[in-house]
């Protein structure tokens, strides 16, 4: 401001001029005619005065310097208005100069700041002009900002890695037709999967333009235009996120749409959702947050405000899909998807909490946690329903051949997948009442008491196995033939034991359970042998009334009857079949050999239909599941 002094005429000089002017006026009043020379001097004075007008009209003229400064800045700002190029595209010099111009305007405004602008006059005029210039500059900067953000946004397209879910294709349908053992074997490879997502950031905007954006933010904030900056920033970044979600092929589905989807399709979408959740929350939003911090870190609450506005809609959309899933019917096959969803959300919840840690993010945090617990409740409910469904699954007709009932296959294969979710499951089941009377294993001896057999999941698994067993007993009663009842129970319990032993389920069922159930199916085997063969063998016994020939004949008929029936029956497990054939042999063959040995001299060969070797061979045809008959063909 010191320059003003030199421009302003000193008081003394002013007094001289005033005196001289008064003198001239007096002289002019006295004469009527003007000489040429006099005219020339006066014209000179006039033109001199006209150049001085401004100075003399300002209040002291001390604002002319400020005005010059403003004019200079205005020119730079206006020049760009007619330029079709973008400032930041035209080089760093141009950008710096432009920002410099804005700063000059800000200086002008600041230097007028102390003055009262209410009266009309020069300061007010300059101030208004400065405000106007500032507005034009801000409008331009906003435009530049949008361009920079838009043109330098960076996409990364992550490969869609289908999460190898641990539970593929265990599908419940009334006929259990789709259940095959193999289906499950291809799964459970997911263990090595990186659950803890490594801290990873992406540059959503080319890092080389970040300083540019930051400088725009700074100057807009200094100009009190930070709100405009934020709105534009939010707008572009939110759009970018929408676009990114569509790159990830995230569909916008209403809850109604989701509820109408077929299971297969829904299951695919759930897997995709899990993947998208992971990418969006732990990568994209983390990066967005970092971007906001870089640009708006100095501007307090504007930072979190922008981040939340950018991400809110998309996050709520993702959560809404989860909500739709929990709203749908709780079919057993959904359990694993629900657990997958629960796990990913549990994994991400700390990240989520830190992304939305501010007060204004609490809405999202609350929704997130609501969904998390909703998924948990839904998984729990689905599991309970699964248990009830097993208990109440009723058949009308006996299962042909006494083989492995599809329900057992389904339930066991289903259960085999659960140990992978053990931690989650225990967490979810912790507060549930456990019906201990249903828990089969006895922990009394303390030997089998390890954490895995006593965790909530273990109780539930055993409880399910126990309802399955009672259901099997009901189903076995549908057979009229006691022997077939035993075969059926032996087969199915053996299957259960095998599935338990061959998988991680053994850790939850425990040795005690396994021992007990091996005992059970062996008991059924013994009962079978007794039920079928005791009467057949008894034909050979001398009851005092029947002659030898007749005893041979009756034995053969009884044997043929059993053979006809039981070749139709089925023991799918080869080892088990062999074992039963052996114990059958042990019951039948020694008795027959003995009988033949004692009586072979008293009976001619034609009455002895089967040799011991014949019988031994024929017994191997039992339980193969293909009916044969001995009536017409004599095997020799």
């Amino acid at each position: 401001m010191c320059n003003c002094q030199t421009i302003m005429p000193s008081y003394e000089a002013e007094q001289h001029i005033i005196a001289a002017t008064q003198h001239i006026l007096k002289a002019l009043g006295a004469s009527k005619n003007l000489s040429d020379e006099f005219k020339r001097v006066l014209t000179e004075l006039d033109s001199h005065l006209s150049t001085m007008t401004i100075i003399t009209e300002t209040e002291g003229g001390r604002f002319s310097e400020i005005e010059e400064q403003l004019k200079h800045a205005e020119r730079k700002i206006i020049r760009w208005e007619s330029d079709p190029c973008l400032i930041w595209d035209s080089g760093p010099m141009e950008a710096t100069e432009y920002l410099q111009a804005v700063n000059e305007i800000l200086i002008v405004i600041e230097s007028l700041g102390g003055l009262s602008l209410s009266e009309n006059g020069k300061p007010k005029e300059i101030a208004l002009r400065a405000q106007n210039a500032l507005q034009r500059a801000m409008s331009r900067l906003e435009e530049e900002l949008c361009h920079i953000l838009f043109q330098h946004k960076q996409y990364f397209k992550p490969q869609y890695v289908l999460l190898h879910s641990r539970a593929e294709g265990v599908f419940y349908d009334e006929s259990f037709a789709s259940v095959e053992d193999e289906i499950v074997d291809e799964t459970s490879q997911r263990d090595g999967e990186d659950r803890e997502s490594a801290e990873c950031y992406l540059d959503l905007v080319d890092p080389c333009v970040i300083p540019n954006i930051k400088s725009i933010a700074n100057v807009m904030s200094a100009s009190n235009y930070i709100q405009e900056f934020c709105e534009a920033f939010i707008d572009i970044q939110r759009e970018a996120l929408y676009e990114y979600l569509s790159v990830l092929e995230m569909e916008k589905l209403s809850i109604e749409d989701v509820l109408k989807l077929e299971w297969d399709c829904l299951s695919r979408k759930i897997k995709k959702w899990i993947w998208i959740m992971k990418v969006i929350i732990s990568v994209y939003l983390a990066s967005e947050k970092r971007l906001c911090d870089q640009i708006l870190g100095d501007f307090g609450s504007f930072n979190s405000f922008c981040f939340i506005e950018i991400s809110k809609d998309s996050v709520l959309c993702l959560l809404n899909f989860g909500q739709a899933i929990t709203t749908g019917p709780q079919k057993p096959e959904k359990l694993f998807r629900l657990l997958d969803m629960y796990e990913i959300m549990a994994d991400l919840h700390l990240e989520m909490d830190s992304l939305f840690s501010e007060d204004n993010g609490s809405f999202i945090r609350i929704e997130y946690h609501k969904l998390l617990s909703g998924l948990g409740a839904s998984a729990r409910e689905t599991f309970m329903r699964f248990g009830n469904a097993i208990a109440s699954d009723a058949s009308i007709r006996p299962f042909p051949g006494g083989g492995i009932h599809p329900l057992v296959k389904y339930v066991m294969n289903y259960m085999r997948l659960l140990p992978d979710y053990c931690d989650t499951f225990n967490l979810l089941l912790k507060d549930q009442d456990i019906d201990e009377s249903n828990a089969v294993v006895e922990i009394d001896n303390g030997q089998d008491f390890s954490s895995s057999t006593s965790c909530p999941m273990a109780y539930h698994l055993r409880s399910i196995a126990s309802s399955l067993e009672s259901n099997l007993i009901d189903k076995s009663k549908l057979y009229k033939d006691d022997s077939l009842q035993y075969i059926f129970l032996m087969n199915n319990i053996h299957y259960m034991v095998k599935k338990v032993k061959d998988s991680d389920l053994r850790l939850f069922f425990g040795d005690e359970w396994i021992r007990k159930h091996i005992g059970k199916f062996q008991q059924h085997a013994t009962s079978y042998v007794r039920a079928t063969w005791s009467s057949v063998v008894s034909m050979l016994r001398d009851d005092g009334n029947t002659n030898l020939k007749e005893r041979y004949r009756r034995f053969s008929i009884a044997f043929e009857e059993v053979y006809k029936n039981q070749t139709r029956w089925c023991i799918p497990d080869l080892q088990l079949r062999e074992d039963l054939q052996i114990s059958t042999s042990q019951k039948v063959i020694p008795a027959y050999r003995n009988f033949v040995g004692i009586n072979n001299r008293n009976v001619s060969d034609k009455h002895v239909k089967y040799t011991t070797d014949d019988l031994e061979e024929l017994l191997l045809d039992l339980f193969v599941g293909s009916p044969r008959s001995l009536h017409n063909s004599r095997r020799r």
Partner: protein
Amino acid sequence: MPATEHQSSFLRRISIRRNQVISMDGNHEQELEDLELFQKHVADWFAGLLSPSEELISSEPLMSISWLRKLVDVFLCCEAEFNTVLIMGRDPSQICKPPLDRLIPELMERAVKALDICNAVSSGIDSVRQCKRFAEIAVSALKQNPIGDGQVKRARKALSSMLTAMTIDDKENHCKSAERTWSFGRRGNTAGANKERAVGNFRSLSMIVAKNWSASKQILAMCSNLVAPRGGEPTGLASPVYILSSVMVFVMWALVAAVPCQERSGLATHFQIPRHLAWAHSIIALQERIAEEWKKKKEKCSAGLLEELQKMEKLGQSLIEFADGFQFPGETEKMDEVRAQVAELAEICRRIEEGLMPLQMQIREVFHRIVRSRTEILELVDNAGKVSQPIV
């Protein structure tokens, strides 16, 4: 009639009912009594909304934020009372018998549609909040003294963004929003620049609302099978189901009409509740008033009937008009008028700031409540035995 009052009276009722359930045996009479009480409450609550007390008329006009908050409260009360009527002390087998075997699944479908509407409305509320932010910029610019070209232009820009934010979600108004938004193509360098891409405070269709989703179709579908129980005297639970459904449709309809919402053409052609039903008188009257308002505003491309939104829209347009004709320093009379408008706009912003978040929270509560009740009712149906068809 503040919200808490409903709540507490409702809670009191539950506890009374609990005691009654134990001692109750012949429950037909109880049923009728329940129904009567339910109808009476519905009638009373809506009467309170239709004609509020003297001192509230000016502070809480129809379709204002505080009025909508009361409306949502009333819905929550109706819903809660319905659940007690339906669930408590009820012989569950009744639920599987006609007509409930049909009515309940229909109600559940309606509930799912209501969930989607809640989401759309919540997103509409976000647009209102965005409008408010632009309005605040305009207010702060125009509060300056003196008002110069710079402030006027700043305010104008913010106000036009505000009007854009109001209109975008509605298909009917797409034309309008397109012309308001500016595009990147504007600057020369178009070769590399993107095709006409609308940016600059253009809020695209909300993420949460599915692409072809239509609020008006949704409302229509909700009342497609909504028929008042026939016969001289409404019997059993059919009547409460009908009452709750009507209330649900009405409340959702009013919310959709209030805030920017995707695709609302033909919203005024509303559902019909038979006039002879005493409990419905106030609802019908409200419905008529809102529908009339809707028809009136439709020609003017209104963003929604929310009182604050309408005022904001009107003030916005008027201030833009002022800005377009502004020449410094402006006539004193005109400037006084502008200052009054700015003060009004500031007051609306304050009301929005105060009431919008609570309203949004309430709508979220409605959402969660519907989800919970739906689950409970489905469980009830499940326990009651056979469910003839899977219920979506």
